[in-house]
């Protein structure tokens, strides 16, 4: 079921809506109305009820998918446009600086940017500053590369140098000497023998860095230790909760920001618009916007109910 206009979700359920979607939405709406009534009576909602509503709000769009028409905002589109405008063969470094906990938010944008960079025939270097990031990076490469880019050759069109310990110390070294920190790739092949690293000595030879994460080391460290020092454009894909912290660096030190599922969905929509061949590929960002949207609506409703209960409760107390 696709919502393509900015109208109220509950009133615009299109013809493609399943019975399950309608029933689920009706349950949520009726339940929220009942809670509004109790809130007017100044009765606080038990937190188990809040949990139940969140569970239902997340479950319904997973069982009966609801998707929305997305449009890239300028802060996301700048990343897309940068990758699009770079000449073919440019070197882009993608750093998977996240763990499985952050993956649901960050993985979709990593997938989309990876597809875009490879489709544009850029040379892509993968790495991770997080030990758990390497496992996720390997999974991503195994999932996307052989199926969608069978012509791309490891070491020629892309290479993964994996993870190495040292946090921001790693960045401090690779900004001036990449091969000192990564003498070989993740398959233990010396970087000097890989064509993708021809005439490449440090991060100064990169055309773009895109870091995905939300923790430390992550986006901020890439900006401070590599972006500024090496004068390389840095784009970030971060968990939604971290995105506001990246705004001070935008637009000069950070090229663009993809924040949470919304940022991923926007990038995916832009990618599909320009590269229709990816329309058949999974778009987890756009799919997850359904559960997130419904959950947000429920949270907004509960915030309103909380204030209604607070307001009526206070009025009752003030009455003699």
């Amino acid at each position: 079921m696709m919502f393509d206009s900015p109208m109220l979700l509950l009133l615009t359920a299109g013809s493609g809506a399943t019975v399950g979607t309608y029933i689920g939405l009706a349950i949520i709406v009726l339940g929220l109305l009942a809670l509004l009534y109790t809130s007017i009576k100044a009765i606080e909602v038990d937190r188990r009820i809040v949990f139940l509503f969140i569970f239902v709000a997340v479950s319904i769009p997973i069982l009966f998918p609801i998707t929305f028409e997305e449009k890239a905002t300028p802060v996301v589109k700048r990343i897309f446009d940068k990758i699009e405008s770079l000449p073919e063969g440019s070197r882009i470094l993608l750093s998977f600086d996240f763990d499985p906990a952050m993956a649901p938010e960050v993985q979709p944008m990593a997938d989309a940017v990876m597809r875009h960079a490879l489709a544009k025939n850029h040379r892509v270097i993968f790495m991770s500053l997080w030990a758990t990031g390497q496992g996720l990076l390997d999974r991503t490469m195994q999932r996307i590369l052989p199926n969608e880019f069978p012509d791309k050759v490891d070491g020629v069109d892309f290479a993964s140098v994996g993870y190495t310990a040292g946090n921001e110390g790693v960045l401090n070294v690779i900004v001036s000497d990449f091969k000192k920190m990564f003498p070989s790739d993740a398959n233990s092949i010396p970087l000097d023998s890989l064509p993708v690293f021809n005439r490449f000595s440090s991060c100064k030879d990169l055309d773009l860095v895109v870091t995905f994460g939300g923790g430390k080391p992550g986006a901020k460290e890439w900006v401070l230790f590599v972006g500024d020092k090496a004068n390389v454009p840095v784009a970030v894909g971060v968990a939604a909760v971290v995105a506001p912290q990246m705004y001070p660096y935008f637009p000069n030190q950070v090229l663009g920001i993809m924040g949470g599922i919304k940022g991923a969905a926007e990038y995916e929509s832009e990618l599909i618009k320009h590269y229709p061949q990816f329309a058949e590929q999974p778009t987890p960002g756009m799919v997850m916007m359904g559960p997130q949207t419904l959950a947000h609506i429920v949270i907004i409703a509960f915030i309103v109910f909380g204030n209604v209960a607070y307001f009526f409760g206070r009025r009752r107390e003030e009455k003699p």
Partner: protein
Amino acid sequence: MRRQLPFVLVFLSGFFMIFQYFVPHQKSEFVYEFLLDWLTIIGGFAMALGIWSLIRVSYDRIKRQRENWGYSVITLTGLFLMMFFGITNWEDGSFGVYIYTAEGLSNSMFVHFFDFILIPIQATMFSLLAFFIASAAYRAFRARSVIASLLLLAALIVMMRFNPIFGAWIETVANWLMNVPNLAAQRAIVIGLGLGMVATALKIILGIERGYMGQG
């Protein structure tokens, strides 16, 4: 000597780092990169130290059968299993131990433990946040004062921004919130933090702050 030596080392290292940043030269960069090598080595040892500490604490808990000691058994089992699978491989029919190369990382057991245990566990823990955030938002976001009302309003607008159903107008307002008040406040915090870090660093370099030596 116990006091003077650490102070001299800190003073020289700190002064050199400032010097090399503002006066980049081939020789100073050589020393700088040499020191960075130390940073990496220390990082490696810190990881080893962390593992050793985890083993000691867990072993002690199991030995004395302290509360929840069973979890320590699971911790140590997981630790040693992942270490074992991470350096071994028998995919091609022959068993091999790989300390210096990455073959162990493709060991199917290592991959399966990561894919089917670590990823679901961490994802589950993070997913639970949604429930607690919803409950906390319900209780905390109350319009008790003008400031609290402003916070509530800003939170609602930013949250609504993530919902495509509210239309373009909310995005315009939310973008203004993010790009103007949020940006100003975040930059103020960042600059304040930066100045604070410089002040603290100078106090440490000049020996005014000696907390790292166990002194006030």
